[in-house]
């Protein structure tokens, strides 16, 4: 909890994050170096962290929550009342939605620290760069039959978002039609959002649907993977927020400020994430400026309203 004392001013900060622990630990260290206090990184999957915060609601233990594969879990959490409002100075000037990308919560309950692009990872040994699909429709090409993996919308929020996106683009009937075909193309629909990209690097699949940083991290490790940003694809920020009623709100706010500062953003960039702060350069071919044009105009309210319904329909149709 936040009871351990740092330098007296900042104190202990409990930092919930599902992002790579080596990275979050690095962030914590850097913060301690600059601002004192002590950052206690608690790593777990997004789902677990959210459930944990819900269970702890009567006596919250965390201060800051960063990351969740995009804004969806934060939207849900805002509704459940487990996150509090805080907008750091740097984000005060941002619109809620910029270029179709919702970068912060309308009531300030979260603010984005980096950008995720949903796209296609492909195995460079099995697929040539020019053959790789460029649009979501390209996935239906018969040559990919049995060679595609995408995360299961019944399990993963990211995948549900993908479904909702197509619905919005095509209208519902068309949308379902599209997915009927896509499911036929797929060899497997894992629960985890990172699994398709991993399958691609193993050669188990030729194409995998996933976020950009997953593919780039694998590529950096030497795997034969590359990434395609398709047209009209969901682009999301990965937010940070303060835990409602957490033991050390002041410390928490300082940590959020830090994450959006140049120092914090540089660390994220080093881990192949696209920084939201334009002062910091991306380590991947992708930048916020560069991908903006691919962004689909996501109506987050519509998403929030239709989320459960579409997912249940998915389950009924495909399970």
């Amino acid at each position, binding site marked *: 909890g936040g009871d351990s004392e740092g330098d007296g001013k900042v104190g202990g900060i409990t930092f919930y994050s599902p992002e790579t622990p080596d990275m979050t630990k690095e962030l914590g260290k850097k913060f301690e170096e600059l601002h004192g206090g002590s950052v206690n990184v608690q*790593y777990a999957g997004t*789902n677990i962290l959210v459930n944990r915060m*819900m269970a*702890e609601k*009567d006596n919250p*233990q965390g201060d800051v929550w960063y990351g969740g594969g995009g804004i969806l879990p934060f939207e849900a959490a805002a509704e459940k009342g487990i996150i509090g409002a805080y907008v750091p100075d740097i984000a005060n000037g941002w619109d809620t939605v910029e270029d179709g990308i919702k970068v912060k919560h309308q009531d300030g309950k979260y603010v984005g620290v980096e950008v995720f692009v949903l796209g296609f990872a492909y195995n460079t040994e099995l697929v040539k760069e020019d053959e790789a699909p460029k649009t979501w429709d390209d996935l239906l090409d018969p040559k990919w039959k049995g060679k595609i993996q995408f995360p299961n919308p019944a399990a993963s929020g990211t995948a549900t978002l993908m479904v909702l996106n197509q619905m919005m683009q095509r209208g519902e009937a068309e949308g379902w039609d599209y997915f009927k075909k896509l499911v036929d193309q797929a060899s497997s629909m*894992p629960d985890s959002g990172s*699994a398709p990209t991993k399958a691609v690097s193993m050669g188990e699949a030729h194409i995998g649907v996933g976020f950009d940083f997953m593919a780039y991290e694998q590529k950096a490790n030497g795997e034969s993977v590359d990434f395609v940003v398709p047209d009209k694809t969901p682009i999301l920020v990965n937010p940070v927020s303060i835990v409602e009623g957490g033991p050390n709100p002041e410390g928490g706010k300082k940590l959020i400020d830090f994450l959006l500062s140049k120092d914090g953003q540089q660390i994220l960039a080093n881990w192949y994430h696209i920084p939201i702060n334009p002062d910091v350069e991306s380590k991947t071919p992708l930048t916020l400026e560069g991908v903006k044009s691919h962004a689909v105009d996501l109506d987050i309210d519509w998403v929030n309203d239709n989320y459960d319904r579409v997912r249940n329909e998915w*389950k009924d149709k495909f399970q």
Partner: protein
Amino acid sequence: MKNWLSSFNGLSVVKILIYVFFGVFLLLPLISVFLVSFTSEPINLLGSIADPNILSSTIEKFKNVSFANYEKIFTNLTYLSAVKNSLGLAILVSLIVIVMCIPIAYGIARTKMPFKKTIAALCTIPLIVPTFISAYAIIIMFGRAGWVTYIYQSLGGEGMLLDPYSMAGIVLVQVFFFFPYALWPMVAAFKVSDISLEEASLNLGAKNWFTFIFVTFPLAIPGLISSALLIFTVSFSDFGTPIILAPKDLNLLVVEAYREIAGFFNWGGAAILTVIMVLVAAFFFWLQHLFTKGKNYGSVSGKPKQQKLNDTKWLTRTLSGYSLILVIVPLLAMLSIVLQSVATTWGSNPLPNGYTFAHYQTIFTSSLGNIQNSIILALGALVLSVVIATFVSYFVVRQNSSRLDFMTSIPLVVPGIAFGIALIQTFNTAPLHLTGTALLLIVAYTIRRLPYMVRSTMGTMRAIKQDIEEAAINLGATPLTAAITIIGPLMLPGIAAGSILVFITVIKETSISILLAPADWAPMSLAIFQNILRGEYYTAAAMSVVLVVIVLILQAVGNRISKNQL
């Protein structure tokens, strides 16, 4: 009053303590899960007693009570087909495993088959490998780019030898990686049988195999049924395999529950699925009860007979060959994991693209503390479960406490994540503020893995004739002392079998650790899981290898100490 007092002995105290323990740490959290199935929001029962604020918020939640979740059971076809699929899978896996394990169990317990120690050691490995990793290993082997597929195709085969992304794949993983759950209790059941009964049968002209089927086997049935139930629930509640293999159109109950809670924070949905699972399990416990009723054969008699090991050449060789063939599948899977752990990258080729020890370096620089935590936590849970399980089997077998039997078996089917959340809900505030302590972690491990211990000790317990215990009591021992000094040691084969299961499963336990482990108590399994979560399969594989090695070393040390010739 006097009578009541005089029958109030040490054993009753123990019984009450066990009830209290389970009441507080199992039933209370489960009741809150049950309540959640109505409110769809967390309920803090203990906190409501201590803190008026929490009480009022709880009351608030109760105002929103609805039966919507229950309606769903009957209206939602997905649930129905999920129940059907889960049952089918679990029954199939249990049948295969039981049939498959009988010869190995007999071989280990009752013969001098060659390579017995090796086989016994190999048979624990599948248990140690975390489920995610084993499923993953099957993909490395049988997947499109798997090396088995490669060999198969270069021999002229079409497509894949066996599609891992299917029901068959799940069965394959569960059978070959879960069979030790049933094997060790079965070994214990065979170990305690009375040799002179078999001699009598041979003497009456029955052949060896015949004697086995009609004398040895029926006497081991209580133990077998116990193991069957164990494997059933393990398969029924396993979500690691289906999630990794992810067949496109196979929905399973646990997976549904896991998704509700993990993907969509839908506590009501998860709670209702948990309720369904507990009900299904209850049905099977009832069946088991029906079967084993009146089957306390008591073959460990007070006229002690020396256990003789069969060393008929053809038999032991056949058994040994058979066992080796069966352990070869998990062994090859393990080899694949070893390869993975030293690979720089491993793409679509049958072999890795390069080799490195970097992953091990990573572990040893960053995870030594985790290893130490794992061992301490596992030992704590082990001691606690040995003590509790011994008494529980005693009460179940000697005093017919089927309530206790059922209660200690519930954790088998409650998904770990649901149980963990229930624990946080209950112990997050005063009066019992235990979240974030190693104690709660150990207690949670114990409750969750205790059923393995209970299953295997109960089989042994049933084989002990009552008169031995009576003799102890007659010599002045209280029932408690008799239980400790006579029954306990006689149950050693069962306890040993259970200990392997408990120790290993605690070491690899993830769902509880993720939720409850305080930062300075993070165990190794958590580290592995985190790696898997992030797709860091190489490090995860390396950690699994380290885990296997550690457990094998500890087991060897344990054997040396207890001179238990497994």
